[in-house]
């Protein structure tokens, strides 16, 4: 009973980590850049939804605000690549990494300016309700998070394997030059990937905000999600989700069975062990790139 509840809350947290990690991996696979602002994308997505729907701000209906926030973050990611990152094309990876770190600071600053630094919770119809399975009482928010992540995962799987543009995104990440030769507009594909990563981050943020209060610093969750992506195998989409779930599960179990503080350290301890014993991560796709 206790254990099951720990599992569910761990999975719910893990889904959020997994979705942020998915954003990291999407962008890394396509463009070989690491977007360290991915966690802040999530924060921004959550705050846009909150800003649209909370009574203190615009007070629009929740089910209208959510898709708007997701689309806005998608457009934000797309335009960011189109107008900023595309100009960095050919620069070293480190320049792009630093740019994304700086972008994270900027986003946190503006979020604080608009929505303040006090924790606020998203006025969501699913917050604070319970669902009962037999004798088991689970939070509706946690069940929703798991369900939405599952649906999103299946949708992304079909997108990447069954649609022409999805397969082209894979193709462009596996062999960029050949993608150019086949007439795939690689630059536009990159922008679309950034858009997709923005939208996924918004979904993660809304899910996260619907089970607790948020403030502009929650973007730092991205670091934990980055660890999750490395644990799962950086460069593998299923690995990102798996890594997220593992980190999510480790946290409540280590604080329950060892001591409260340990939940903060255990994910990184695991990260160390993974890097030592299986440096490509759990589900690594190790295929050597041709030079």
């Amino acid at each position: 009973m206790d254990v099951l509840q720990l599992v569910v809350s761990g999975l719910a947290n893990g889904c959020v980590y997994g979705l942020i990690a998915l954003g990291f991996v999407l962008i890394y696979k396509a463009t070989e850049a690491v977007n360290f602002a991915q966690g802040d994308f999530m924060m921004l997505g959550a705050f846009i939804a909150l800003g649209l729907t909370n009574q203190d701000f615009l007070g629009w209906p929740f089910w209208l605000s959510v898709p708007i926030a997701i689309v806005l973050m998608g457009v934000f990611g797309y335009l960011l690549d189109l107008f900023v990152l595309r100009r960095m094309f050919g620069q070293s990876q480190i320049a792009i990494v630093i740019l994304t770190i700086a972008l994270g600071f900027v986003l946190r600053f503006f979020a604080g300016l608009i929505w303040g630094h006090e924790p606020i919770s998203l006025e969501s119809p699913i917050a604070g309700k319970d669902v009962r399975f037999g004798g088991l009482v689970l939070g509706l928010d946690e069940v929703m998070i798991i369900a939405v992540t599952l649906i999103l995962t299946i949708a992304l799987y079909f997108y990447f394997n069954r649609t022409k543009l999805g397969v082209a995104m894979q193709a462009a990440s596996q062999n960029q030059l050949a993608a150019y030769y086949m007439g795939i507009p690689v630059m536009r594909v990159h922008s679309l990937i950034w858009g997709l990563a923005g939208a996924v981050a918004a979904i993660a943020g809304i899910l996260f905000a619907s089970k607790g209060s948020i403030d502009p610093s929650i973007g730092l969750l991205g670091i934990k999600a980055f660890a999750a992506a490395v644990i799962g195998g950086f460069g593998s989409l299923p690995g990102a989700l798996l890594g997220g779930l593992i980190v999510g599960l480790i946290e409540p179990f280590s604080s329950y069975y060892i001591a409260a503080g340990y939940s903060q350290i255990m994910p990184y301890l695991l990260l160390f062990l993974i890097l030592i014993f299986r440096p490509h991560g759990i589900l690594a796709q190790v295929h050597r790139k041709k030079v």
Partner: protein
Amino acid sequence: MSGATAAQAHPVQAPQALLTVSNLESYYGPIMAIRGCSLEVREGQIATVLGANGAGKTTLMKTISGVMDPEKGQIVYRGENIAGASPDSVVRKGIVHVPEGREVFPLLTVEENLRMGAFTRSDAGEVRRDEEMVFSYFPILAERRRQAAGTLSGGQQQMLAIGRGLMARPTLMLLDEPSLGLSPLLVKEIFRIIRRLNRERKVTMLLVEQNAKVALEVADYGYVMELGRIVMADDAKRLLQSKDVQEFYLGVQQETQRGQKRWKQKKTWR
């Protein structure tokens, strides 16, 4: 027999030039890799560009397919200057580049690779029919259609690269070193198919090769490139007989001429 002589003097209505490259200059990083290159590819023919490593052959191909931008010069395809056009617009115009070293999408299946070749097309039914057409030329690919391309052998990957190029329904195919790293037997087979594609599918080809013998045997017209310039141009049959080409590209030893690259001074192109 005056008719026969007349036909010899004016061979069967020379086909139109499909692609004309003139005075092309292109940089590979800071290095000027193409230094005023001019050549033409006639409709329905196979033209080949021979040359040693680093002669600029691949840069020439990349400049035509739009992956690299030229510094100067013109690339006229069907009367339109396509120099500096984007790679996807070049594919849409009917020019497809089958790159050196095959460059398949390693984790996609054979079938997905072929579908990517048809990325610029939106006629799904026709694409499926063309897939079967490709399989008819390369039956081994049909057997492996659900296999990841990275697991294919070198020869099969080369077939897949050519098949993937065909899926774009090209008028002109740029073939970069199709013989690279293949056994002599496989080279023969690939070139037999290249010949058939040229005849049966009416695909005009610009073929870049280091293996001068097979290239000249399959080609109608040949160019020799050195240091970014065309230094010789002639009918493929005549180039095959040429003493210079024999010595420098076919490895036929001729003691008296060794070491003096006479033809380097006598540029035959314009």
